[in-house]
């Protein structure tokens, strides 16, 4: 399409500005999204991790480009989207740091400490990360160990493969 649209359609509302991080509701994975992370056993594994160490509030698996893949029940959809984008940004910056100052082997583990708790992120399967939000009472070492154990067990299920381009042919405009 090379024609310019008609005028006067810039209509971002104040609310959209405030909630710019929130994703519009989107349908579940269609035939183009062979994600391996939607089955209930994985949800159960995440809930199980949450119960295994004190102070874990939320557990989320996200793709490296910032989209939630699965998460624990108490994390509502909006905050899951937000956490996925934040964690992907942090891991992406970690990767840049590793390329600049380390051996470029990529993002390892990230830990953020802030008033009221912690955010821990580790690499999961290919193209995915596992993020955990805790309260102040959590023991970082214990939580991190459980996270790494979970990735060892089920990391191969937690993958977000690169997009293929041949679907583009189906796109209509």
């Amino acid at each position, binding site marked *: *399409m*090379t*024609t*310019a*649209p*008609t*005028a*006067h*359609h*810039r*209509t*971002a509302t104040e609310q959209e*500005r405030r909630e*710019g*991080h929130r*994703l*519009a509701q*989107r*349908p579940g*994975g*269609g035939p*183009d*999204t*062979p*994600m391996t992370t939607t089955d209930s056993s994985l949800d159960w594994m995440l809930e199980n991790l949450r119960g295994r160490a004190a102070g874990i509030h939320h557990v989320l698996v996200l*793709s*490296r*480009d*910032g*989209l*939630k*893949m699965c998460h624990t029940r108490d994390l509502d959809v909006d905050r899951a*989207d937000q956490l*996925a*984008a*934040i964690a*992907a*940004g*942090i*891991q*992406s*910056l970690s*990767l*840049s740091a*590793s*390329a*600049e100052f380390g051996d*470029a082997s*990529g993002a390892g583990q990230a830990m953020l400490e802030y008033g009221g708790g912690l955010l821990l992120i580790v690499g999961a399967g290919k*193209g995915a990360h596992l993020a955990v939000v805790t309260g102040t009472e959590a023991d970082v070492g214990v939580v991190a160990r459980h996270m790494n154990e979970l990735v060892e067990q089920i990391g191969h299920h937690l993958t*977000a*493969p*690169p*997009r*293929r*381009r041949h*679907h*583009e042919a189906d*796109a209509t*405009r």
Partner: protein
Amino acid sequence: MHSNASERTASEPTSLGRPAGERSPLAPTVSNALKIVIVGGFGVGKTTMVGSVSEMRPLSTEEVMTQAGAEVDDLRGVRDKRTTTAAFDFGRITVDATRVLYLFGAPGQKRFWFLWEQLFTGGLGAIVLVDTARVEDSWYAIDRLEHHGMPFVVAVNRFGAGPSLDRVRTALDLSNDVPLLECDARRRESSRDVLITLVHHLASLDRAGSAPKEAS
């Protein structure tokens, strides 16, 4: 192994004719750090622009787009895009002995818009990149800059034949005092011209007595 850093090799020339391997250390005389933000929709060329004008190896936070985004990130009209910015791009241009521009490229997708607030802080001005095949993707950026009171110029990243600048101005509902120009974000000279246009625009606003206020 995947590297998140620039894909340039050391022998490839970067800005100012220096090879990327030779860093240009910041002169101790620099006293003015000017922050410029590059915004616009998904896949319009923000990362490309920062990469083409930066004198140092740009920081880029490109992530491979995964199948998790198949329902979210609309790839129609974004050509051969395979990666996307997950945090921000960062580059630098030394103007003269005392002034240096710091370029921050914003991430394009809606899910990363919350980062824009921090990127705008302390910014002097902004470049809005536009792809005329997806003009509507730029509306949010322009609205937000107007909301922040941050001066900006609009650059149409030409991917081929497209509508005239007059039609783009109408489609974007831009007032006549906002500079609008064409560019090729892949070319350093072209990206540099956009920056020059922005700096002239900022200077003219300053002369007109409406000094650009820092976004807060």
